[in-house]
């Protein structure tokens, strides 16, 4: 037993592998009893070197690379990249393609928010809500499959348009799915606002004031829950949002309850706008021809991912490959708020606060490494890595 005069620091590590995190990240919370007194973060566990890798690939190849920045919001990454490249090339995708992009983007938002609601409920220890939301999330994924053929990584975009049209039959199926989802969403809104036990874990917890949200540059639903009216879909409409606008949802209280409520309200809004587009779908082509080389220039393309503002800075030097692509994902500014908020809260609230911003480590970490060899310091290139992978599995099979 220690008999030292000093109070020992008691640090609870969360991560890199931890049940509260669906992806790797590392946080250290210093606690006094159950109260958190300090917090720090170390990121980068899902770092894959995408920003560097894209400089070695053609414009078209990169579309598929960026789609894989994140599994949950894959479509919005691809859309942002495609829209940026189209802007650089001076090509405009046809209105029907833009409308289809918006449909998929909003379906993806429903998928992402439902997933988040389940995770948040699980962190709070309300597993029944978790199971129900994830059951309903299956419906959205099925709808996405109807439209694009895939449940994850939909691959709906191509440069200059979209891959698949939406037929009237598909449209009818989506509308039917939306009927079911809208009913469920209303139910969840009721639950999160009225279930006393759940409210005990959300109301007044992790409050981010408007002033704080503005100072930290928080984006997305997390910011809108704190009364900051910031939504790229409304501020700077892109793809089909000028024709089919969405209404911005804002909540004032800034606690976890507000973050839950705002996401569910956004679901209603997404359902409404999808319905509107499907019923007023513009006619015409779904793709235009894109040049192989893209004109020299720079574009900053901002879109609203499910988690908040996402932007791509794309620079072309007139070649077949991009000169530089910089991805700023919404989790980075939001992550700063977690570390700032954690202090003073109960240890039990931490998973909720962490989940409250809907962190996406894959998004955040994306970029740059080309891996490094065990022990040695020589770098691995993609080619080495690929070869290593092939060798590795060949060996495995032999054993």
């Amino acid at each position, binding site marked *: 037993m220690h008999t030292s005069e000093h109070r020992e620091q008691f640090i609870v590590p969360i991560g890199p592998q931890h049940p509260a995190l669906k992806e790797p990240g590392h946080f250290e919370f210093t606690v006094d009893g159950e109260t958190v007194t300090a917090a720090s973060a170390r990121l980068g566990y899902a770092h894959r070197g995408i920003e560097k890798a894209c400089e070695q690939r053609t414009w078209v190849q990169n579309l598929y690379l960026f789609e894989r920045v994140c599994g949950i919001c894959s479509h919005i990454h691809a859309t942002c990249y495609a829209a940026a490249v189209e802007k650089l090339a001076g090509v405009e995708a046809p209105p029907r393609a833009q409308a289809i992009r918006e449909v998929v983007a909003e379906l993806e938002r429903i998928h992402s928010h439902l997933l988040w609601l389940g995770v948040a409920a699980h962190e709070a220890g309300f597993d029944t809500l978790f199971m129900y939301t994830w059951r309903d999330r299956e419906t959205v994924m099925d709808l996405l499959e109807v439209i694009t053929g895939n449940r994850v990584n939909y691959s709906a975009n191509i440069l200059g348009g979209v891959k698949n049209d939406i037929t009237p039959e598909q449209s009818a199926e989506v509308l039917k799915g939306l009927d079911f989802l809208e009913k469920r969403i209303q139910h969840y809104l009721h639950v999160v606002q009225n279930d006393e*036990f759940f409210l005990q874990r959300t109301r007044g917890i992790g409050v981010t004031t408007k002033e704080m949200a503005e100072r930290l540059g928080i984006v997305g639903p997390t910011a809108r829950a704190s009364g900051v009216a910031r939504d790229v879909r409304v501020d700077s409409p892109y793809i089909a949002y000028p024709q089919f606008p969405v209404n911005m949802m804002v909540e004032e209280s800034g606690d976890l309850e507000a973050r839950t409520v705002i996401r569910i309200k956004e679901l209603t809004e997404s359902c409404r706008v999808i319905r509107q587009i499907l019923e007023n779908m513009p006619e015409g082509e779904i793709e235009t021809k894109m040049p192989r080389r893209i004109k020299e220039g720079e574009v900053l393309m901002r879109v609203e991912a499910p988690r908040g503002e996402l932007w791509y800075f794309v620079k072309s030097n007139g070649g077949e490959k991009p000169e530089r692509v910089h991805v700023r994902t919404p989790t980075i500014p939001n992550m700063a708020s977690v570390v700032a908020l954690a202090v003073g809260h109960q240890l039990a609230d931490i998973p909720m606060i962490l989940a409250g911003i809907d962190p996406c480590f894959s998004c955040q970490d994306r970029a740059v490494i080309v891996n490094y060899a065990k022990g040695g310091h020589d770098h691995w290139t993609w080619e080495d890595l690929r070869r290593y992978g092939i060798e590795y599995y060949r060996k495995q099979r032999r054993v």
Partner: protein
Amino acid sequence: MNNINGLIALLLFPSGLFIMAGGLAYQWIDRKLVAQLQNRIGPRWFQPFADVVKLLVKEEVIPEGANPWLFQAMPILALASALTAVLYVPMFGLRAAYSFPGDLIVTVYLMSVLTISIALAGTNTLTRFSLVGATRALTQLFCYEAPFLLALLGPAIAAGSWQIGEIAAYAGKNWWMIITQPVGFFIAMVGLMGKLELPPFDAPEAETEIVAGALTEYSGRGYALFRLAQGVELIVGLTLISLFYLGGISNPLFFIVKTLCLLFILAALQALLTRLRIDQTVGLWWRFIAVLGLLQFLAIAIFATWRWIG
């Protein structure tokens, strides 16, 4: 001869193998019910058995820094005390294997040993999750223990005995005490959930915060024994509540029907409620449930005194 009977009672029936299997079966029913309520399929019937068998054959890793003797003794102590408790409770509508005036107190004491050994096992290891979990388990123990005891004393006072068999006999002859003492029934149920660390009182093993709480470092045999002990305790708790509040248990059929009804209530509560933070748990117990328990206890005491004078 008597000794052999005692051994059989401890190792085979009603305690021992039989009750362990029963405990696992009840755990399965509980998991299945919760799964159904959550719109899931749930585990197959042999899942808890398979888990235990698998855990028993696995290597047990004793973490560095832990006292190996204590580390291995704790699960055994937990299971042994839970099994011993079975001896004093009339299981399956049969007479208890052993019975003496005051066995109720011994049983309640033996049931607490499980929590205490889990907490000790947690503090024995150096893992931070275990330490936080153990602290929470002990904090929670101090919350539910007194009200739970009060809830079991209510029927005891009404029956005028501290012997489980006699209280059960009294309960069988009179009105069901769930009607005459509904508050006590409620507290006993909630207390049992606390004892078994079921949601919403699962803060000591909240996996999103502290992984598996006090038992984080346990694997293999030790963990299997803890699981078995929890299963046994589930049955003992349900039996006690049925005995006292649901009009006693006169035959095995009643035993199954009544305990399953209670289990269904437990499962529904687990599915409905959100985990409480440990400070919220303490607040709930001391500000609300303990006060209720005391009021009910006072009412029974006055009633009993009045009857005694009259």
